[in-house]
């Protein structure tokens, strides 16, 4: 089989193969060159962008949060720099052991550990969490000496929020806290993720929340060159942050202090307005809390205490709680009667001590009645019978339409979050409210109108609504939007004041308004609030009110059970000639309006008009005659707290 190949046949074949190989190599090299050409010339822009994207990253520069000051420039919220000890769990093998080791030379309490764990749980977007905040210089020095032992643990200088006045005005000022996952989602939804990329805090309540956008500022960006490992090599370009604006509030913190002190241990709310502008002068919800507790993340213990207390210190009673207005509704019903033509200024009726309707006898508080009563007297002595009859004559929808103009039952538009609407009852309201029940439940009964006539029954209004309503009377029927913001000042010192915002003008005859005001002014001179305003060097208009907490069907009203006592109301304005302040005071379970609420109002008005600073609780005037407040035990509807409930 095997033949001897021709001489040189193998070699000859080799040359052909060599040529083929050379050709192959040539094709290979051209292929490579084309590939590189395609990458470096044709797709250069694309790959250049990718390389730049690799190399350049943007570091957020967190803007400094704006300060909050009161109308006189007193600081209510400010920033300070403090050192925090932060752990990055991803860099630490055993977090608990590390904390144990740290606690040997830095005080770490149980609540610090709790807070640390909560923080990690709620903030998955961040990789490090503080185990201790506000380190002393000595603690920082001690840690620095041991630092080499702790990878993944470091001291950071952070900006903290400080509320120098503590609990004072906390429902108004609010607080900031760490951005939670929930907040982060909301920020994402508002398309503001970039602006919050470096921020740790966000306003959670009060002014801090409402004016978050102004206070936060605009995050700056530093373009840095970084390595693949994320290490920053150098800064390329910086767009500085725009600091948050300073917020100037209309409240006077000194007045606030007097108002809060006046409440003492009592629960309740007070809203004082400048009737001509709607500026909020004092905004009280008692009890208060210390907003500083929230800044670094609240400890479990503090949270439990605030959240489960039956005094509900976190509830903002001034805007988020609605109460039946009691007799404070009477001036508004009176105006409805006059302006609708159902009553005239000269109209007089004889009060027999009650009003019979549909088989029910609606009693007056004063046995045998108040005698002959006109509009003026009905307000001064707070005659129930007069308003039973008037409400019945007007009908519920006329009442709702008229007193609704004062903002009752609708959002006042105050720049404080969580405001509730309260309840302004009408036939339409009842249909809607009981839509799920049968037609019988949705029907409005005449007897219900009669209860509403003296501020009991379905109606319920928030203190800020009542303040706004009385301020509207004081401002001759012009309703201004209540507002706590007075001006904002940006980082260049540019101050922008907010003009007053007129919501509406009450339709009606000014003569009638003047008549009601004159009656209100006599309330403090000869009527139900005489004792509270005894000796006042100014004239004030006011109206007491008592809201029932429980319907006591035939039961004896029990003064001694505190949480069953009636809520005490007082609305007022002063001075009568040219009102500078209008306010609503509500004391939960304070009993008769003249007993609890009126003395608080007096103390606040004194402080405002006379600069009389009193830092103690207003006395309960137990001697005040409960003559205006009826024992309306036959009414079936309990206190209405919260929205439409």
């Amino acid at each position, binding site marked *: 089989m095997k033949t001897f*190949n021709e001489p040189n046949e193998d070699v000859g074949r080799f040359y052909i*193969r*060599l040529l083929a190989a050379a050709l192959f*190599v040539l094709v290979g*090299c051209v292929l490579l060159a084309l*590939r*590189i050409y395609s990458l470096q010339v044709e797709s250069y822009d694309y790959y250049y962008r990718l390389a*730049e994207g690799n190399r350049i990253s943007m570091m957020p520069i967190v803007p400094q949060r704006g300060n909050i000051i009161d109308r006189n420039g007193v600081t209510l919220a400010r920033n300070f720099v403090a050192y925090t000890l932060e752990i990055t769990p991803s860099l630490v093998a055993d977090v608990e052991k590390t904390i144990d080791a740290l606690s040997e030379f830095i005080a770490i309490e149980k609540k610090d550990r709790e807070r640390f764990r909560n923080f990690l749980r709620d903030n998955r977007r961040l990789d490090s969490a503080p185990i201790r905040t506000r380190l002393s210089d000595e603690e920082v020095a001690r840690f620095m000496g041991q630092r080499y032992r702790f990878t993944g643990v470091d001291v950071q200088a952070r900006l903290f929020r400080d509320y120098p006045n503590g609990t004072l005005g906390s429902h108004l000022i609010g607080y900031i806290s760490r951005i939670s996952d929930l907040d982060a989602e909301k920020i994402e939804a508002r398309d503001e993720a970039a602006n919050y990329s470096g921020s740790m805090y966000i306003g959670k309540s009060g002014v801090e929340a409402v004016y978050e956008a102004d206070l936060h500022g605009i995050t700056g960006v530093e373009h840095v060159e970084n*390595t693949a490992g994320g290490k920053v*090599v150098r800064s390329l370009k910086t767009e500085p942050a725009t600091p948050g604006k300073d917020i100037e509030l209309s409240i006077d913190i000194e007045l606030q202090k007097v108002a809060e002190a006046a409440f003492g241990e009592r629960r309740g709310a007070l809203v004082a307005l400048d009737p001509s502008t709607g500026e909020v002068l004092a905004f009280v919800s008692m009890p208060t809390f210390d907003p500083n507790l929230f800044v670094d993340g609240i400890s479990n213990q503090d949270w439990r205490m605030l959240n489960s207390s039956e005094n509900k210190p976190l509830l903002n009673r001034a805007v988020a709680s609605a109460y039946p207005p009691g007799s404070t509704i009477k001036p508004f019903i009176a105006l409805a009667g006059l302006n609708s033509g159902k009553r005239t200024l000269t109209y007089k009726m004889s009060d027999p001590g009650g009003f019979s309707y549909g088989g029910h006898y609606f009693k007056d508080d004063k046995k045998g009645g108040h005698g002959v009563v006109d509009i003026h007297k009905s307000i001064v002595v707070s005659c129930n019978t007069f308003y039973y009859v008037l409400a019945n004559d007007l009908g519920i929808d006329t009442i709702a339409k008229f007193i609704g103009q004062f903002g009752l039952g609708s959002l006042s538009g105050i720049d404080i979050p969580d405001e509730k609407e309260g309840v302004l009852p009408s036939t339409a309201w009842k249909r809607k409210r009981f839509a799920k029940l049968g037609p019988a439940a949705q029907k409005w009964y005449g007897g219900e109108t009669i209860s509403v006539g003296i501020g009991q029954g379905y109606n319920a209004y928030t203190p800020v609504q009542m303040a706004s309503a009385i301020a509207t009377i004081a401002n001759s029927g012009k309703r201004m939007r209540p507002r706590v913001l007075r001006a904002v000042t940006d980082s260049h010192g540019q101050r922008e004041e907010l003009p007053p915002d007129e919501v509406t003008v009450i339709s009606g005859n000014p003569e009638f308004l003047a008549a009601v005001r004159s009656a209100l002014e006599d309330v403090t001179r000869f009527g139900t609030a005489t004792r509270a305003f005894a000796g006042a060097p100014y004239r004030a208009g006011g109206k007491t009110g008592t809201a029932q907490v429980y319907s006591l069907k035939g039961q004896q009203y029990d003064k001694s059970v505190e949480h069953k006592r009636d809520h005490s109301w007082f609305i007022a304005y002063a001075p009568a000639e040219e009102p500078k302040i209008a306010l609503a005071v509500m004391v939960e379970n304070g009993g008769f309006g003249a007993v609890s609420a009126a003395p608080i109002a007096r103390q606040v008005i004194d402080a405002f008009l006379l600069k009389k600073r009193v830092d103690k609780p207003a006395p309960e005037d137990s001697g005040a005659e409960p003559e205006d407040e009826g024992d309306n035990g036959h009414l079936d509807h309990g206190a209405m707290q919260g929205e439409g409930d």
Partner: protein
Amino acid sequence: MIQRRPFRITQLLSALVRPLDPPLLLILAALLTYGTVIMGSAAPDRLGNQAIFISLSLFGMWVIAFIPTRRLLSLAPLFYVIGVALLLAVHLYGTEAKGAKRWLDIGPIHRIQPSEIMKIAIPLILAWFFQKREHFISWGEFLVAVLLLAGPIYLIAKQPDLGTAILVCSSGLFVIFFAGLPWKLIVPVALVGVAVIIAIGIFGGDWCKPDIVWPGLKDYQKERVCTLLDPNRDPLGKGFHTIQSTIAIGSGGFAGKGWKQGTQTQLAFLPERHTDFVFAVLSEELGLVGVLILLGLYVALLTRGFIIAATAQTLGAKLLAASTTMVFFTYIFVNIGMVSGILPVVGVPLPFISYGGTAVVTLCLGIGILMGISRSRQER
């Protein structure tokens, strides 16, 4: 006396250098210089080590160059037997590192890698064998050659060391090809190969979809092959290398970002930047211009290799020279191909540029063989 002294030095130098095939030496010097420049940017701290490797390699090259080719070929069976024995030893007693068993610890020589020896031993043994069978080369000879090749390849691929296996295998196949393997055999295999590559190009994406089951392969094996084909499937793992090297090359543009100015390189986005992926450093910092200079040097090297092969005196020498040249090409093509993303990533260094002792020693020994063949040719 004084006049003769410079003359003597030149004479000595010429005696030392002339056997080294001056054109090849020149090209080698240019490549090594270029490589040093690149290394000065990619890993300046390793320049010292690389200088030691290069010096040792050049000495080895010089020694090999002085061995007559006939003598070298006659030693081939010995090299081959030693090489295979060492490969078996690796298989039995080898040191494991990074999941592969490639090294032997022998006394003071830490970590000897026998598969590298095969890169020299395989072409030698096959060239020696075909030389022996000159004028009688037929199917039987090719079968024996394939068997000689298959054993070591199996052992190397099992380590596993895909890059070396490819290089060793190709070195053997080149010898067989140049020895005259019939086109009847080559053409169908080449056609099937091309068809498979085209099919992968068109259908590769479909085949790698999650619900497609590959007969006989487990899911992770399929995933590995698929990542090899499409690095974007695993951008943080195996695909990361190719993605970053492609970005480095592309962003270099025509003129490059400048020496030591490559952001991908200097900011460590490019992995393995001083070893297998050094081509990306060159491309990023010196641009298309730098790439074409490198390719030009390589083409010169290959051309010189082909000329030596063409003019070698014996069949054995011709086969050895031609296959050695083609192995250089294989290094170049596979490395640049994988770094630029057209070939899967297998561990093949860029000849004379990549950092690493083993590679530069083997490559310089190859150059030494070419030089020896060139010298033997002149001596005739």
